[in-house]
Every structure is written in C-alpha cells, then in structure tokens.
C-alpha cells in the first residue's frame, strides 16, 4: 500500500514537470468493424483510430458493445466485417493484454506463479519487482483465495504488466471494487501507464473515472461512436475541479439522453436532434 502512495507524490511531480514517453505504445486502427453476437448486431461500421500511447476511455450504457469491442481487439470475438489493425512498434510483435472485471487469477497457483503465467522461470525477478510496484511484494506466496478484491485486481494488473504490453485493455477492471479501493487502483493504473508509455483502452460505466484517467472519452451508442471528446485537463486530475465537473455533467448528460429514444421514440428523437444541433 505504501508503495502506491509514495510513488503517487513522485508521479505528481513527474506529471507536472516531465513530458510523457509515448514510444512503447502501439496505435490501433479499427475500421468499418461490424460484430453480431447471437443474431444481434452489437457494432456496426465502427471506426476508431487510437494513437500510440494514448489513454482512451470507452463509455456507454450496458450492452452497447463496448466490452465486445475490447474482446475483438484481443481476438476473443471475430468481427463479421471490417478490420482491426495494430501499428508497428520498435521491435517485435506488439503484446496485447486484457484485464477483466473479475481478476481471473488461477486459484491453484500462488500469487507469484499467477504473475508469471505462461512465462519462463527467468521472469521471476521481474515478477517480484512488479509485485513490489503494485504494493503486493509480501503476498507473493499467498493463494489468491485469501486476497481481497482490490488485491486480486492488483495481481491481475501485475500479471498483465510483466509482459510489458504495448496495448493494455481494461474491461471494467474496477467495477466490482469499493469506492476507496477504486481511487487507489485508478492512481495505480494512471501511474503505470504514465511511466511505461503503453496504449490503454479502458471500458467503464463510470464517467468520472473515464475523465480522471483518459486523454479521450468515446461514447458508444447504437453500435457507433456517438461522442468523441478529448480531455485537456492537466494530470493528475482533481475531481473537485470546476472544469472536471462541467465535463462530467456534459458527458453524463449525453450518455443519459439515449434512454429517451428507447422509451418514447418519435417525440424524443425530435428533441434529441434539437439538442444535438445546439
């Protein structure tokens, strides 16, 4: 725990004074992607370009296809049409890692073995270092079953980071955590992203979380991009900030708008178009 907070102060200094390194990340270009699951169209002619090293948050109502988008980037779903391409990186093939809402640790492997899953034994020192960075050095020999939810997610993060990914996909990884643990994890994710320079795509329900972390917030509605907003707030971002609050209001308002279309179509649509025009 102390590592997280100690590094936080250092990070704040870094964020204020230094330029971030973007070199390790990989760009992602998603063009004309259509995905149908079980006969229902989830994404249709979906287009997004993500720059190398960018932190993108994807928000939207449940079932809007934001998780499906992440899953298709990592190859767990196959699009019926369109293409998803990763850019080139300095050397080798870009490594893509995904973190899920549940930690998906193997319960029969100790924490350190979970972190080195699929790797040679020579990665053990590396794993130890990363466990220290996420504040769990002393839990390396524990079974996952005795960890708290937040600790498990930190192990899952360490497991993703040990591969030194060029792209980290985060599928609501903080959704099941309590409010305090969430804030801690957000800080941790922001700090590793800042330090390592990978590209990050975060799917979340929480607009405030999206604004806290992301360079850019994308709203998916009806299988398409409904809003694509760059967040120009300086990091680290304070939630009390007036600009933060007005951004949150605006994006949240836009997310909630969609509900009226579903419930009361003809009238609401007219109202919507009017609202969009403004």
């Amino acid at each position, binding site marked *: 725990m102390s590592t997280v907070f100690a590094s936080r102060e250092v990070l704040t200094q870094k964020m204020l004074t230094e330029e971030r390194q973007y070199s390790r990340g990989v760009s992602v270009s998603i063009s004309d992607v259509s995905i149908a699951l079980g006969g229902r169209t989830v994404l249709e002619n979906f287009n997004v370009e993500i720059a190398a090293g960018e932190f993108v948050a994807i928000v939207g109502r449940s079932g809007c296809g934001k998780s499906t988008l992440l899953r298709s980037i990592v190859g767990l779903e196959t699009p019926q049409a369109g293409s998803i391409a990763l850019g080139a990186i300095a050397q080798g093939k870009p490594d*893509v890692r995904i973190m899920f809402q549940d930690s*998906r640790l193997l319960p*029969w*492997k100790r924490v350190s073995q979970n972190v080195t899953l*699929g790797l040679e034994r020579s990665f053990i020192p590396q794993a130890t270092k990363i466990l220290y960075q996420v504040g769990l050095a002393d839990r390396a020999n524990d*079974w*996952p*079953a005795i960890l708290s939810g937040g600790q498990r997610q930190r192990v899952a993060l360490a497991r993703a980071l040990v591969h030194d990914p060029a792209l980290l996909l985060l599928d609501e990884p903080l959704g099941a955590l309590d409010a305090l643990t969430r804030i801690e994890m957000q800080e941790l994710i922001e700090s590793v992203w800042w330090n390592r320079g990978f590209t990050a795509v975060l799917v979340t329900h929480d607009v405030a979380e999206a604004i806290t972390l992301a360079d850019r917030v994308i709203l998916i509605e009806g299988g398409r991009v409904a809003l694509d907003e760059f967040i120009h707030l300086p990091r680290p971002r304070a939630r009390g900030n007036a600009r933060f609050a007005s951004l949150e209001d605006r994006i949240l308002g836009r997310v909630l708008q969609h509900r009226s279309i579903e419930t009361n179509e003809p009238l609401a649509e007219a109202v919507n178009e009017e609202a969009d025009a403004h």
Partner: protein
Amino acid sequence: MSEIRRRTITTSSSLQAMVNRALPWVVPVALLVLWQWASSNGMLPSRFLPAPKAVVTTFIELSRSGELWTHVRVSTMRALSGFALGGGLGLLLGLVTGCFHWAETLLDTTLQMIRNIPALALIPLVILWFGIDESAKLFLVALGVFFPVYINTFHGIQSVDRGLLEMGRTYGLSRWALYREVILPGALPSILVGVRFSLGFMWVMLIVAETISARSGIGYMTMNAREFMQTDVMVVGILLYALLGKIADLLSKGLERYWLRWHPAYQAAR
C-alpha cells in the same frame, strides 16, 4: 454480558476440547462393552456372534500364522489393480469426452446407457465370460470404479471456469499449457470426488467378487469360516473390510488436502 461469557469459555476451553474429542467414541465404546457383557453373560451365543475378546484373539492368531496377511495382501492387490484399470480408463475417457466435443457426441450416450445397468447384474455374464478366476474379479472391480471416475472427470472439465480459459488464451498459452495449467487443475476437485466415490465401490465389488468364488482373499476367508461356523473369523474378515475401506478413504482425503490446498475449503485447518 459478553465479557463474562467469553471468560467462562476460555477457562473451560481445554476441558471442552477433551470432551469434544471423546464424544464421537462414546457410542462405539458403549456398544462394545455391552456386546462383551452380553457374550460373557451367555445372552449372546457365540455361534450367533462371538465375544469381542474372541474376535481379538482370533485376529492375533490369524496374523501370527501369517494366514491373515496373505488374504489381506491378495485382496488389496485385487482392489488396487481393479482400481488402477477402471479408474485409469475412466479418467482417460472422461478427459477425452470432456475436452473434445466429437468424443462426447460419439461416446457419452453409450456410456450413460451402460452406467444405468447395475454392475452386479452383470455377474452371471461375467462368470460365463471369465470363469471364476482372477480376471472376473478384476473386471467387476474395474467396472464399479470406472463410472464414478468417468462421470466426475467429465463433469469437472465441463465446469471449468470459461473466464479462466479465455484468460489463458489471451495470455498465449498453448493448447497443452492451457490443459496443464487451467483445465486439469480446474477439474481436479471434481475428479477427486469421483475417486472417493469409486473407492467405496471398489470394496463393494471386491467383496461380492470374492464371496462368489475365490481361493484366497478376505472374502474367501470369511466364506470359508461360514462353512465351519467360525463366527470369530467371519467378524475379523468383516472388520478388515471396514478397516481397509477407512484407510483408503483417509488416503484419498490426504490427497485432496494436498492437491486442493489452494481451495478455501481446505485452508480452514491451517
């Protein structure tokens, strides 16, 4: 109020622990005492049931002469080889049908049909096929052991967390690594349940097989004693089965405790 209660609990806790440990043995010991008393009283004739003391004496005699150990060894070997054959086959087929959909489609219906035949109903056929020698006993034990292992292995693999499989795939685990790191350990709790079930069946089938026809083994010893009305030998044989069954159960429990030490249910004792 709670303070007072806590204090009384701590002062009497060692006594409480002793009572708790002794409690399960009260009924068996009482029964034993009653049994011995009824026998020495003449209320329980020895041709109906021998006195506990006579059973102990017979046990000592039989084990001194070495006769007992020969029978125990023969029976144990039969049980273990039948278990290895049937359990191994059940594990193998369970893994294949659990992992490959085509194998499930091909084999599962057939196996479920055979499963519904009581194994003991096959005895007349088994005698016809194998005669009354060792292979008949091996077959019966293997048959009894096969299905619990097969069904629980199959079920265990089917119930492996899909999320973990997905995770393994995104981490680039090869098919074999996925199998070794995720599928097999995930199915292991269920497989071990199957093993414990099958150990019970193993002794049942062995007893039946040895009772029908044998020239050695605990079942033979017991049936032979019946011919001569040696009730003490019969009781020794029956108790031996109980003892061996208990040992087998303890061994499988030990395996569970070791292999599933990651499981929250097995960490309470630590």
